[in-house]
Structures are given as C-alpha cells and as structure tokens.
C-alpha cells in the first residue's frame, strides 16, 4: 500500500486540535482569508467546488457544488436564506462526523463560512444529534472562540461579509437525518419528512431557501479552496474524488475511523487499515456504507469503495461505513436487529413504512427464534417490494426494504436453514441478555 495523501484527519488527535491557536498554526482560516481578501466572487467559489467534483458525504453522493447552485439567484429572490449542517449522524455503523466535530471543529466552521459566503446565507444552523454532547460542546466552544476573534458574526475579517452560526440539538430520532425531517425538527416540531417537491432550495426552513449539507462534505471545502480544484481532483477515483472517512466496525481487529482515498478496494480497507477479520476468522458478510445499504457476500470484497463501483454491484456507497460480519455471525440475527431499528425509527406518516417496518421486524424475529416458515421468507420479499422504491414520502421505507431484499438475495440459505432446523444454527453466538420488546 503506497501512502496516500491525507488531509481530513491531519489535525485530529493532536494536542489542542480543537482550539483556534492550533487550527491557525496549521494553516486554518487561510481558505476563508483567500475568499474574502482576494476577493473571490460567490460564483467563483461555487465553481471551484463544482470543478473539484466533491460529492456529498452524507449518503446520497450528490455533487455538492451542483446542490449549492440550486439556491435561487439573490437578485431575483430577496428572501432570507439558510444553511443547515446535517450532523444528526445516526445511520448504523456511521460515526465519522463525530470525529471531525470533536477533533477539528474549526475546520467545519471555516467550511460553513465559505459555503455561507458562496450562497449568501443569512444564518447557518448546525443540527447535532442530541447524544453527541462532547462534539456539540467542542463545536460550541470553537464557535465562541471564532466569534471573539472576528471570524463569526458581523464584518468577518473586516470584510462586508457577515454570518451567524447557531448550534441546535436534536433528540435522538434517526428520521431527523432526512433533510426535510430535520427541518421540521429544527422548527420545533415532530420530525416528519415533507413531501418533495418543493425542494429545500426553494422552500426550506420557515419556507425560505435552504441548503442542507453533511458535516464531512462541508469539511472538505476549505481544502478545496485553499489547494484548488485540480489538487482535489487528483485524489480518489475519476467519478468520486477526494478522500473519505471510512468507519469500519464489527468483527475486525482494529475497528476505527480511517481516512481513505475514494476508490480503495474494500478488501484493502478491511485488511490493511482494520487489520483483517478478528480472531483469525473468515469473512461471512459485509455492509459497504451503513446498515441501509444491505449485506454483501465475501466474493464482492474486492470492489472499490466509491459510489459508482458499489452501485454497479447492486448496493450503495452510503456513508462509507463498513460493518463486517465474521463466519460465526448470523445474517438473520443481523437482519432482525436492523428491522427492529427501522421499526423503532419509522415516523409513522406513511402506512407502507409504519406497518411494513413492524411486520419485517416481527417476521425476522420469528425466523431467528425458530418459529418461521417458508411463507415467512416469501412474505419478507413481498413486504419489502410493497414498501419501496419511491412509495413513501421519504426513503426510510427503502432503507428498511433494501437490507431485507439483500439478505434474501445473498443469504437465503441461512434463512431457509433457520426454518428447516426450527432454530438459529448459530444460536450460541447470538443469545440475548433478556427478552426485550421495543
């Protein structure tokens, strides 16, 4: 493995990495200075991000610069405009944004300011999941420090550019990671996703133009502005550029959040970064990018970790969070755990999702406990097909259906074995502490 160029985690882990002095000392706020002192125009900033080819790191992989360009022309639309940073990181397996916010909060703040400049944003809200207290406190302290240094608030760096950044706490609902559910929640309501269209760039927070971006996406921006689109485009693969934070968890020797060039084969991440499968065991199944992307079999582990290659094998890059299952793990048990999760997190607006997630949970549980039938397996598939794609207001139903269809496609033998043997063949490895109905 040749050593890749790293930037995302350059400061993380350093003594005082969360402070303004360490951030300044390592070139921090240089990109913002370049924007404001050159000065660059709004269009130049957006075009640099577009040319760099940055794709959103929150799950959909949508080009960030293109998203920014959807914000209405300020000369024709004088409404207030908002930016939301989606830091409601809740996709099972995903814990990368937490590292950035905790270890390098000024990097996110600088990215917010540059994005806010480019889109003429009046106020930025960073919506952090409520459980992330330490990252929240670190970010709040960094914003206070930046404000005292004239980097947040009025007339930033003595320029005409002013921008407020507010922290906002969520309260533990996965659905608020969906951008319109997030906006409802930020307005103080239940996190019920809104039908689209209208899209947030036209009608967002409080009905105003709004852009919603993931933490890691925004974190990339100062590097692109400082080092240039050409530098960024050299990193990663042709269609998915730059490095990404890969959280790898489950049955590996060294679980962790690693900075990896996009396009690195999943096997290399598993073996070289995470030290391979733990306890000398072999690979049974893996998720490429969080639980909603579905289980894949071992023979696909050489697939490059980037959006198009993962899509080509019938899955999704998602948040790039790999979850690894060794040979002793039970894919039915894993499916039951995730079905329980989606059942718990469905907001209840759409009947396909509200009822479907509950049924998936009950059926996977019954099969895992040994009471399942072949009809149950057929019903799993029928249910999943009835829930997705595109049959509901948001994609939570899809997120529950995809892993269901994936386990039937790749691990049907294991479902059948549970039915035929009337128990979980791997029960010893999957015992519950007690019966917990959620």
């Amino acid at each position: 493995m040749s050593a890749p160029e790293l930037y995302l985690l350059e400061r993380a882990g350093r003594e005082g990495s969360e402070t303004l002095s360490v951030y300044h000392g390592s070139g921090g706020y240089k990109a913002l200075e370049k924007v404001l002192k050159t000065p660059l125009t709004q269009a130049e900033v957006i075009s640099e991000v577009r040319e760099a080819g940055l794709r959103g790191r929150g799950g959909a992989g949508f080009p960030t610069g293109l998203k920014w360009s959807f914000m209405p022309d300020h000369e024709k639309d004088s409404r207030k405009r908002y930016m939301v940073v989606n830091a409601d990181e809740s996709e099972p397996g995903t814990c990368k944004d937490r590292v950035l916010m905790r270890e390098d909060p000024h990097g996110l703040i600088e990215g917010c300011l540059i994005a806010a400049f480019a889109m003429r944003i009046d106020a930025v809200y960073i919506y952090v999941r409520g459980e992330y207290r330490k990252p929240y406190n670190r970010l709040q302290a960094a914003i206070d420090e930046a404000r005292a240094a004239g980097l947040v608030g009025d007339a930033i760096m003595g320029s005409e550019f002013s921008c407020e950044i507010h922290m906002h706490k969520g309260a533990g609902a996965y659905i608020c990671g969906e951008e319109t559910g997030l906006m409802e929640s930020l307005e103080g309501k239940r996190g019920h996703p809104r039908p689209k269209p209208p899209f947030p760039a036209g009608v967002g927070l409080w009905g105003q133009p709004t852009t919603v971006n993931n933490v890691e996406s925004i974190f990339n921006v100062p590097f692109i502005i400082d080092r240039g689109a050409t530098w960024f485009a050299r990193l990663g693969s042709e269609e998915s550029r730059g490095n990404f934070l890969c959280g790898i968890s489950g049955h590996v020797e060294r679980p962790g959040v690693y900075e990896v060039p996009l396009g690195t084969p999943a096997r290399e991440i598993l073996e070289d970064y995470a030290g391979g499968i733990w306890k000398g065991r072999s690979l049974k199944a893996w998720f490429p990018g969080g639980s909603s992307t579905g289980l894949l079999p071992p023979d696909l582990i050489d697939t490059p970790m980037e959006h198009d290659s993962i899509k080509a094998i019938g899955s999704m890059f998602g948040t790039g969070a790999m979850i690894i299952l060794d040979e002793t793990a039970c894919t039915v048990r894993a499916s039951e755990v995730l079905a329980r999760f989606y059942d718990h997190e469905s907001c209840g607006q759409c009947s396909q999702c509200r009822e479907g997630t509950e049924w998936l949970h009950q059926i996977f549980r019954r099969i895992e406990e040994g009471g399942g039938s072949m009809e149950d397996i057929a019903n799993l598939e029928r249910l999943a097909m009835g829930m997705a794609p595109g049959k509901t207001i948001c994609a939570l139903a899809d997120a529950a259906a995809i892993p269901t269809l994936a386990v039937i496609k790749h691990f049907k033998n294991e479902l059948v074995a549970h039915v035929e043997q009337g128990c979980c063949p791997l029960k010893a490895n999957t015992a519950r502490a007690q019966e917990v109905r959620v």
Partner: protein
Amino acid sequence: MAFPAALQAEFEELIKNYPDRKAGLIPALHRCQEDLGGWITPEIMEDCAEFFGLEPVEVYGVASFYPMFKLKPQGEHVIGVCHNLSCDLRGAQAVLARVIEKTGAKVGSRSADGKFTVEVLECQGACTNAPMFDLDGVYHEDLDEARVDEILDGLR
C-alpha cells in the same frame, strides 16, 4: 408554575437564534430535563406551552416523538446500552446482561432502590468503539464485563 428565573433568562436568549420562537422548543426541553429532575413532567409541558405559544398537547406531541425525552421519572443514574448491529456483533448483549445484574433494574424501568434506570438504545454513533453505553449523558466505549463492573462500582 413558571420556569426558574435562570432558565427563563436562558430561553429568552435562546429564541433570539431563530426567526420563530417555537424552534427553541426542543433545545429548551433538553435544558428542562437536565435541570428539573431528569424527565419532562406535565408541568414542564405546560410551562413550555406558555413560553413558546403552543398548546400543552403540542408540546406533548413533540416530547413523545423523541426518544431522548423521558416522560416518566428516571433513576438517579440512567444507563442506555446500545444494542444496534455494530455493538451487537461485539458483545452488547453481554454488556446488557451485566448491567442488569449489577443494577437490579429491568430494561425500561427503575431498580427497586430508585438508583438506576436501564434502557436499550438504537445506534449511538460510536460503532467503531463498540460495545458502548451512555451513563448520565457520557459515552463509555470499548466495554467488556470487567469494564462495566469498574464503571458501575465507581458509582456506589
């Protein structure tokens, strides 16, 4: 009833962050739960309704939607064990069993002495340091049974 003066002042500041004061509701519920006894009482809902210009049932609708808001009294210490996939793969059930054994609390309720509430949580975003639990708002990660003992014995 009304909020204590310090919270009232804090909320007056909070709502300046938003063009519509209702947006302050969820952050305010967090602060109430932290400072006013660990759960969202009917009185807190009424006070929030008055402050934010809502009906009490609207506040209830919000508070009951979000898992972090507790609608019944909690133990002196609240332990939330993550039982989602990454934690499950690395021994969350053993951690949960140990927590139950040490505290005498059943999942979802308080121990008889009122000292502990134990709950199970969905993914807490600490997957690469699984298994984990949240104890009174602080993450404890890379747990095993010995570490659970050490942490819980430290509380007694």
